[in-house]
């Protein structure tokens, strides 16, 4: 479970103070598929970065699986990211020098699995996204959709409780986007909590729960009415 209570994030430069999140309170339950929408600059990505422990917050409370994130040091945050969170990015973020096998291997290395276990997980997850036959290919030899599938395999390899997706279909054509969304839904049905930031209203509606971020504040959308209006 992810719980944020009155979380604020203020970016401070020499002259300007920017409130990226204001009294942001949100609870994400086990097994949720949450879509986060909002206009550009509203604070969606800031929320996702804080949720993914990639960024600190100015004040407020943030509990991830009951653990107070604010009290963790760099090592503790890294361990929690590795064990509980999987990331999917708009730009795929695969390491171009490494083949698919080694890309999926990265978080497993940091987890400290032995070679046999790492191999099992890599093949299993690449197989799950339909790319087990291309282990030795470099990312540059794949299409955008395939690269995003590898990124999903990498995110799933550590069996995370939360999957954080930042515009996961933003760089894909509609056919590939549909494929990736179907895959995310399937993953969610198997028990993984998904938080997805998107601009695409159609994709957002496929989530079981929707929130909107505007001017750093979060508001829950009534999914039933929203769907009916749409």
């Amino acid at each position, binding site marked *: 479970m992810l719980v944020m209570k009155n979380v604020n994030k203020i970016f401070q430069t020499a002259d300007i103070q920017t409130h990226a999140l204001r009294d942001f309170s949100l609870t994400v339950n086990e097994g949720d598929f949450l879509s986060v929408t909002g206009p550009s600059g509203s604070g969606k990505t800031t929320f996702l970065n804080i949720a993914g422990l990639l960024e600190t917050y100015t004040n407020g409370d943030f509990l991830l699986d009951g653990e107070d994130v604010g009290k963790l040091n760099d090592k503790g945050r890294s*361990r929690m*990211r590795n064990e509980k969170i999987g990331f999917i*990015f708009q730009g795929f973020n695969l390491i171009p020098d490494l083949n698919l096998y080694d890309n999926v291997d990265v978080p497993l290395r*940091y987890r400290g699995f032995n070679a046999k276990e790492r191999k099992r997980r890599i093949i299993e997850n690449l197989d799950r996204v339909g790319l087990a036959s291309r282990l030795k290919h470099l990312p540059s030899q794949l299409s955008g959709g395939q690269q995003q599938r590898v990124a999903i395999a990498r995110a799933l390899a550590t069996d995370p409780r939360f999957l954080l997706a930042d515009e996961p279909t933003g760089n894909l054509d509609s056919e590939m986007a549909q494929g990736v969304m179907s895959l995310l839904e399937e993953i969610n049905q198997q028990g993984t909590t998904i938080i997805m930031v998107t601009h695409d209203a159609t994709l957002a509606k496929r989530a079981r729960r929707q929130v909107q971020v505007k001017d750093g504040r979060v508001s829950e959308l009534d999914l039933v009415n929203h769907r009916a209006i749409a």
Partner: protein
Amino acid sequence: MFNYYLKIAWISILRHWGLSLLMICAIGLGIGAAMTTITVNYLMSADPIPHKSKQLYYVQLDSWDVNDPFDEGLNPPDQLTFTDTTNLLNAQKAFRQNAQAQANGVIEPNDPELLPMSVSGRANTADFFTMFDVPFIYGSGWTHQADVNKEQVIVLNKVTNDKLFGGEDSVGQTIKLDGNVFKIVGVIDQWQPKPRFYDITTGAFNDSEDIFVPFSMIAEQKIGRSGNTNCWKPSGDGFSAFLVSECIWTQFWVELKTQQDKEEYLTFLNAYVEEQKAYGRFLRPMDNRLSNVMQWLENQEVVADDAKMMMAMSFMFLIVCLLNTVGLLLAKFLGKAPEIGLRQALGASRATLFSQYIIESACIGLAGGLLGLVLAYLGLIGVESLYGDYMQGLATLDSTMMILALVLALISSIVSGIYPTWRACNIQPAQQLKSQ
């Protein structure tokens, strides 16, 4: 994880081979220059007889002019008069003692086919061979009795024995040296102590001698003496007058086993000088010294100041090379900011990333060290060809120097990698992930 870091480093070096090569060359050049000068300094200042260098003492007595002190009064004369050497030798107060001077002569080979050979020589006493651990192939040095009896015996070095006897055991045979017949008692093996500590006055890095004869042969005029001679007052006419003059041209070494032996011998030297003062000699304040091998090399500044200066300059060059490497590493690691951000997102802590990138720096440093070894080898060949015989045998990279080169490269690259790695590890992952 170490193997994983090595694998990642290898991939990164290959992927950015141009930048990596530049860094390897920068480190290699710095290490090459530093190792060339370090090696020369190291070999110049190496202990030539480590197991007993603290038991061998060079004797100095200040018999010089009271009105014009030797070395402006900073040091007593670097050699002794024949009178003092003979007196100290006859006193036999040390565990071992060796009186010596440089000599030279011409050998007339027994084989009429061979031309006469000009040879470098050393006139010394029997203890020379045991004191300085001279290795023999055939026979041995002569006995004390041979010194006392002024026997015409000779020890050849291997090269001379090879020339005269084709490398056969020549012990017991005779040769004619400067018209006098000498009986061969031993043939020494290859022996080239560097520095040639037993006689610095005639060149610390010269080769050891072709032949060795008893010290008494000089006084007996059976062999010509050579080397440095300094006199502070006229030596008089004739060789007999020269021998009893105040000219310094002989050296005297003693072997003393313990500190107490050394103190006792110094007391003896002081008593000797007091005695000589009674004869109107030693007019300067008493300044008798016993210097062990390393103290003597230091005192004689065997490692020249310009060699030290060269070493300092080469270290500065190494620092410049490392500063360049810092810049290149910074460019490389900051160029990897998106990957670093991603690795953080996937669970790498700053400490983990620091280890990974410092190992990459170390790998580049090791490659630079290997290149530096090759350059140092070429540099030493250059030094040898520039200075000729003076540097012969000094310009070699031994295993200690090779290990030192690699360790120096490793430390240098790790030190240069610290700042770029620290900068890279402090990258904010969120910004990098969004910018991809």
